[in-house]
């Protein structure tokens, strides 16, 4: 029987529905308090949020923080409304808000983890030599062929659906890959607004240091299972959460397989816990009998 519910947590916010703040307000969620706690935790003054805030779009770190805050606040609405999920899954850095929602990490700890992960990999991002990009309209094999035929230092680091792929690697080669992709017939091929090649082989050298850092945190058994976007295993223990946090930063992920796995597990209802509707858009290209509930409709 298809009746299970999953909470999905986005990583970055490509575009706001511009209904988020009104939804928070309607449910008596004071978003300024989330910003204030983040400011206090980080020891910096975060600017008031507006939908047009450039710094929350263009600053790689702040973009992650604001996405985390929106996701946590969104989850708090669902919690207030008594929605109990069967599973949770975080798209890339969405894992942190997923773990907050599952009661596995404290709200402030999520902020600290994001900060430290970012600080750790900033050795790469500050060089401006790496990049990520999205390609729509080509298949995995098309992109693999482009990569191997042209000896590009890039990798497919995530598959969103059959024809939506994310790559990461050396910036000059990412740019070349986009040019080749367009020539090959991609409907769209564009750079992402990040300088860190998340989930690529270039992150592997950071795995041990990140693991040591994660070990310093108090992690609780999750109140609902989290599905790994790395290998789609069901995570129910604190040890597995610690492993997954490292995998999630340093290994390739596969959102398509994660969604397929959830659908096979009889999930028919998804809530996108966060700003925008990127995950529901991606899901339109995934077969299955399921529906997405927009946050603003609750």
């Amino acid at each position, binding site marked *: 029987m298809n009746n299970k519910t999953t909470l999905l947590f986005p990583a970055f916010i490509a575009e706001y529905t511009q209904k988020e703040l009104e939804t928070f307000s309607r449910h008596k969620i004071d978003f300024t308090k989330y910003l204030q706690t983040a400011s206090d935790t980080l020891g910096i003054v975060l600017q008031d949020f507006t939908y047009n805030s450039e710094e929350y779009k263009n600053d790689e770190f702040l973009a992650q923080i604001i996405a985390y805050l929106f996701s946590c606040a969104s989850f708090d609405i669902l919690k207030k409304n008594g929605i109990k999920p069967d599973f949770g899954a975080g798209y890339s850095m969405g894992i942190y808000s997923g773990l907050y929602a599952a009661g596995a990490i404290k709200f402030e700890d999520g902020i600290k983890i994001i900060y430290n992960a970012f600080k750790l990999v900033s050795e790469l991002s500050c060089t401006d030599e790496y990049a990520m990009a999205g390609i*729509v*309209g*080509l298949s995995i094999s098309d992109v693999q062929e482009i990569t191997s035929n042209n000896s590009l230092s890039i990798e497919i680091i995530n598959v969103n659906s059959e024809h939506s792929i994310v790559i990461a690697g050396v910036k000059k080669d990412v740019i070349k890959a986009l040019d080749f992709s367009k*020539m090959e*017939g991609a*409907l769209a091929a564009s750079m992402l607004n990040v300088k860190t090649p998340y989930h690529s082989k270039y992150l592997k050298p950071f795995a041990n240091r990140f693991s040591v850092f994660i070990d310093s945190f108090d992690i609780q058994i999750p109140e609902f299972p989290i599905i790994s976007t790395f290998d789609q295993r069901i995570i129910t223990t604190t040890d597995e959460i610690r492993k997954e946090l490292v995998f999630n930063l340093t290994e390739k992920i596969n959102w398509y397989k994660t969604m397929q796995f959830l659908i096979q597990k009889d999930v028919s209802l998804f809530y996108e816990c966060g700003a925008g509707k990127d995950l529901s*858009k991606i899901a339109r*290209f995934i077969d299955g009998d399921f529906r997405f509930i927009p946050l603003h409709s609750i």
Partner: protein
Amino acid sequence: MAQITDKVREEVKEIIFEFFAEECETAVEDINDNTNIISDLDGDSLMFLELIEIFKKKYNLNIELKTIGKFAIKNPVKTIGELVKMQLLIIEHENNILNI
């Protein structure tokens, strides 16, 4: 090659207008042939892909996405009117669209 009748022309236009009205949460009456997909409607590539899939299913089209991509590079689409025209060409010529 499919015959483009007035009925198909109207159908394609209606599907595209209603699709963008729903996706972009705007009234159908506010969309016209000159509406810019990106600047006026905040449209994106996934919407374009979804529309292609809708038409592929509806008209049982034999066309690869890559072919559409190659055609779109030479014939970029900015407005709703241009998109309707391109979609009609896709329905009419399918995989031969690059040869027209």
